[in-house]
């Protein structure tokens, strides 16, 4: 006992020393990059949005002038409307199809692995390549889709069809991600529950409604949130396939940030557009979290 006591004392002293320094050494390299290239730039971005800075000259503080200008800027209104429309079209398709594919590919048949690979393959193709590929598939006269349909729909070149064309490409390329997330959620549901339900006399339909769907709610919530965040920030597909056109019919928020800040070099105004996006995303996240909590309370 007497021999061990000093050793324990030493260890405790050493522990106290570790508590002071080691964690920060572990964290330092990451925090250096995080603060200088993520947290810092976010705060600077917020600050720039209150200035009239345009690449050259000294930025001048203009308060909320940029935000006021946004309200009467028709291009901003178009960008916001288009982004909301794109999100409203793509999200139900992406979440609905993702869930349907996952339920389907979760059935115990041979060959489902092949189906999973096929559904996920488009997701590993970079979005700009997807854009180039779908521009060809949606070509008016010789594109694969129109040839198959036997029609000459002016996808991408007519203001009324361009958005749908973008949505098709986006759904094809991203549905695999949601499918994988839903499959992971389905596999987390213990099979004993289904057996118990079957013994209690529940048919397949009943156990789907009373077991699968409620237990999948957390996954569905997550998938919905991620899908909204991703589609709201759509850029690469739009940039490649339509550049926001024809006219402003597919101009999206990020596309507008890009043109104002990096083609017209209005850094202050561009930052304000990006801040509005951030605020909208936070509001959507808050509403969803609330609705989700309510929903959970009503189930349990």
């Amino acid at each position, binding site marked *: 006992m007497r021999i061990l006591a000093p050793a324990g004392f030493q260890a405790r002293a050493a522990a106290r020393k*570790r*508590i002071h320094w*080691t*964690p*920060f050494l*572990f*964290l330092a*390299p*990451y*925090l250096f*990059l*995080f603060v200088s*290239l*993520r947290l*810092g*730039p976010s705060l*600077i*971005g917020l600050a720039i949005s209150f200035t009239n800075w345009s690449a050259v000259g000294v930025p001048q503080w203009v308060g909320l002038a940029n935000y006021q200008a946004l309200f009467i800027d028709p291009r901003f209104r178009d960008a916001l409307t288009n982004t909301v429309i794109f999100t409203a079209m793509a999200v139900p398709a992406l979440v609905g199809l993702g869930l349907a*594919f996952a339920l*389907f590919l979760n059935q115990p*048949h041979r*060959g489902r692995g092949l189906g999973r*690979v*096929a*559904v*996920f*393959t*488009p997701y*590993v*193709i*970079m*979005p*700009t*390549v997807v*854009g*180039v*590929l779908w*521009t060809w598939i949606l*070509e008016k006269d*010789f594109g*694969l889709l129109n040839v198959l349909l036997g029609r000459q729909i002016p996808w991408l070149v007519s203001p009324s069809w361009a958005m749908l064309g973008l949505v098709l490409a986006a759904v*094809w390329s991203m549905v695999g*991600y949601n499918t*994988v*997330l839903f*499959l992971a959620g389905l596999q987390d549901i213990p099979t004993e529950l289904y057996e118990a339900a079957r013994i209690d006399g529940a048919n397949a339909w009943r156990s789907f409604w009373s077991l699968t769907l409620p237990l999948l709610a957390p996954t569905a919530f*997550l*998938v919905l*949130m991620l899908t909204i965040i991703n589609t709201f*920030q759509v850029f*690469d597909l739009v*940039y*490649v396939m339509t550049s926001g056109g*024809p006219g402003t019919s597919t101009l999206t928020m990020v596309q507008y*940030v890009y043109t104002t*800040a*990096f083609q017209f070099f209005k850094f202050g105004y561009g930052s304000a557009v*990006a801040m509005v*996006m*951030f605020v909208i995303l936070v509001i959507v996240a808050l509403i969803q979290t609330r609705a989700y909590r309510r929903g959970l309370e009503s189930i349990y």
Partner: protein
Amino acid sequence: MRRRNAIVATLWYAVLAGIIVVMMAPVAWMISTAFKPELQILTTQIRWIPDPPTLEHFQTVLSRHAIWRWLVNSVVVATAATLLVLLLDSLAGYALARMEFFGRDALFAVILSMLFVPLQITVIPLFLIFANLGLVDTYAALILPVGANVTGVFLMRQFFLSIPGELEDAARVDGANDWQIWARVVLPLARPALLAVAIVTFLSAWNAFFWPLIATRSDAARPLAVGIAQFLTLRPGLAQTVQAYGPSMAAATIAALPPILFFFALQRHFIQGVSMTGLKG
């Protein structure tokens, strides 16, 4: 009952075939177009097998564009970014999960809150930072911002929270210090999490577009994602140069095949890794 099962199974396979065809047809069409002679591209006849197959579009693309250079740039940037993230995030994630220090939870909350801040907000300041450092159009400008990611730290922390503390205690009794415990005890256990982080980081660095578009000016550092985008956006006016589809599909094929083959080879790890990212939120 058995008869009914057989019908259900047949139906299931029919739907499966439909899904596979719809999801793979665009990829097959891309490859098919890339190898087609000019005359077979702009036609309303559907022909899947080029007759005779030609390499002319690949030759056109390779002679006019620095596509190999873009490919090398993408591989270098995505690989370096992945290694950087693995090192930094496994260190930081470990400290956030297993060490006690003042302000730990607050720090983690700040890191996590950045998940909601769209990257577009940071892009203008990032550009100014790298322009001031004279690092625009370099690999560093593309790699370093990836190191500031949030997902990797979050995933590593989650993983480290799940391993039992007895292992570290045992190592500590044996006289190992924190660094040795991290390197010899914890990291070997973290292989599944590291693999997941590696796959997700590589994929997102490989696909990244907005920031690389702004941060590169020439072929010196331009990654594939940005290079490929020029194929259709450089079209003169709105009138598309119609005969460009052969070369652009050849370029698309060159860009798409490496990740597809990579995915086919590692599909189980890929899908597991990606589904782990679903834990965030």
